[in-house]
């Protein structure tokens, strides 16, 4: 979920701009407390959408560039598209107080959870989002929001190891293959610099939750990372797929869609046997929205076949829309193995949730490991 990564079309992600933006970004984090959202006045299913207009904030290049035209054609509602670079940026805007002037925001799941705890989100009205019926049941039962009470998934995925099949004597099957590498892989591995994904391999290898907040477990994770660091080439969130393509590294921890950006058929993706995470990027409706019917219609439109096909074909993330995902698996699965993952496999991953106060401890571990 959470990405601090920039979403971008395949073409542009290969370019510098995508890489560059990702660096500037933020990632996950957390806090505590806050009241749950409660339903406000019920929405009118017969509202005249042509009189409504909404503002949607999304990561740059994460949806069909013609979305505004197509949405207005379909629903008659007016739409303005705004951009945010990171989860932190949009959450900052939405929690600053007052009317943020945004009706629908794209945020990663654990951020949706936090926004809901802060009482800022309008409950999703399933009557106004009939396309929910087309989503995989697994995608409607994610840890941060079981039953889509306040968020609807736009894309989902997991984290694993991208590796060079042709350069390794045996493909990796365990996080330990990367954390405690064989001599042939020493200084030929990369890990992600962003939490919670920096912790994830060690957490899973040690049998802990990806969301652990137990101090003793976090200490063990840190010890493993300190031990792993001298065997790494480095931490890289931005250009790791290029390091794989050039053969500088044999393995890199990676969000699943990103292996594909290397453009190299020898780069394969595996979810290690100890398991990994399950993230989702979601859409939420703000309680402050004055055009909630159009906002719900927008979410419905975005999980429909046309927009989901665009997303999975261009971003190479997995679609929660069953028909779209199955078609993509058949058409793209051979070239992009992550697209072929079944929802059952995906749902084996542990759903990431808001870490609350522990976000500070996670970041402290990242700082200590990098400073070691």
């Amino acid at each position, binding site marked *: 979920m959470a990405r601090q990564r920039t979403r971008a079309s395949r073409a542009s992600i290969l370019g*510098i701009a995508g*890489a*560059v933006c990702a*660096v*500037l*970004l*933020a*990632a*996950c*984090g*957390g*806090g*505590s*407390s*806050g009241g749950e959202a409660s339903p406000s006045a019920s929405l009118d299913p017969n509202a005249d959408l042509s009189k409504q207009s909404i503002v949607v904030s999304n990561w740059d290049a994460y949806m069909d560039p013609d979305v505004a035209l197509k949405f207005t054609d379909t629903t008659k509602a007016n739409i303005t598209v705004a951009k945010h670079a*990171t989860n*932190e940026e949009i*959450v*900052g805007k939405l*929690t600053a107080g007052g009317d943020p002037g945004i009706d629908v925001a794209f945020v990663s799941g654990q951020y949706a959870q*936090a926004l809901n705890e*802060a009482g800022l989100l309008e409950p999703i009205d399933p009557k106004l989002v009939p396309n929910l019926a087309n989503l995989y049941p697994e995608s409607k039962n994610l840890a941060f929001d079981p039953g889509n009470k306040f968020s609807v998934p736009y894309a989902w995925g997991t984290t694993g190891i991208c590796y060079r099949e042709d350069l390794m004597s045996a493909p990796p099957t365990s996080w330990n293959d990367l954390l405690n590498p064989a001599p042939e892989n020493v*200084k030929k591995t*990369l890990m992600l*610099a*962003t*939490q919670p994904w920096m912790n994830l391999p060690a957490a899973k290898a040690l049998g802990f939750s990806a969301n652990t907040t137990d101090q003793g477990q976090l200490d063990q994770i840190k010890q493993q990372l300190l031990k792993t660091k001298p065997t*790494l*080439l*480095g*931490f*890289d969130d*931005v*250009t790791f797929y*290029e*390091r794989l393509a*050039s*053969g*500088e590294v044999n393995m890199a921890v990676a969000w699943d869609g990103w292996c594909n950006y290397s453009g190299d058929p020898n780069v394969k993706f595996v979810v290690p046997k100890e398991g990994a995470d399950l993230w989702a990027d979601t859409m939420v409706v703000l309680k402050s929205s004055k055009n909630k019917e159009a906002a719900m219609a927008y979410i419905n439109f975005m999980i429909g076949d046309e927009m989901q096909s665009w997303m999975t074909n261009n971003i190479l993330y997995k679609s929660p829309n069953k028909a779209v995902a199955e078609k993509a698996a058949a058409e793209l699965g051979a070239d992009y193995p992550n697209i072929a993952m079944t929802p059952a496999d995906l749902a084996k991953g542990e759903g990431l949730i808001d870490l609350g106060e522990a*976000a*500070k401890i996670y*970041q*402290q571990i*990242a*700082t*200590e*490991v*990098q*400073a070691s």
Partner: protein
Amino acid sequence: MPALTYLIVLMVVPLTLVIAYAFLTAGRFGGVQGPVTLDNIGRLFEPLYLGILVSSVVNAGLATFFAFLIGFPAALAITRLPATWQTAALVAVVLPFWTNFLIRTYAWIILLNREGILSDALGLVGLGPVDFLYTRQAVILGLTYAYIPLMVLPIYASLQRLDPTLLEAARNLGAGPWRRFRTILLPLTLPGIITGCLFVFIPSLGNFVIPELLGGGNSQMIGNLVRDQFLKSRDWPFGSALALMVLALLVVIVMFQASASRRTRRWGA
């Protein structure tokens, strides 16, 4: 009066906010809340953070030193050019600034990686492959490269003001090149050199993009730490405390610079 407004809006207000934040507690989504606390200041003295500060100062200091080693001869060479060529040379010095900073840094990744041009070239003469990327050296190189124009320009300006007859007289009286450099060029351009050093040191110290892209987590700097507190930990108070620590360091350095240039003015008089 406009100057005072400018000072208050752009300097006093933000600084007051940073100072106030440093003594508060982190909020749920970033931001700050009560109670007032000294914890953030206390954390600054943990060895982890002091260590990163020291290594940042060393990185920025080395970048400044190398920028001087390259920048001074470059500025000198420019002043020796015919007037029209001087303009062209100065434009060339500034030219990289017309390209996005991140793209220029990204270019270094292409040059420095194990399969990159530099490593390949060394490989041809039997010295490669070499890992330059994700090293501290790469960070220092990146910082030096990024800010060299800021070293060249002030040194060029003070060399321009230098009376060439002084160097001529020294030569006529038998001073060799080293002596002319040491007793005339260096002292009389010292204000420019110090300005150039500050212009390189200060942004180098706060840079977080180069350590992240070229250092690959092997050379964190204080800028990364401040950025992480605001964008990753949502710990604005500690981020503010870190920023204050850097600010205090810079105030000391600028005061040193001010007194140094006062001294050089006295010598000049």
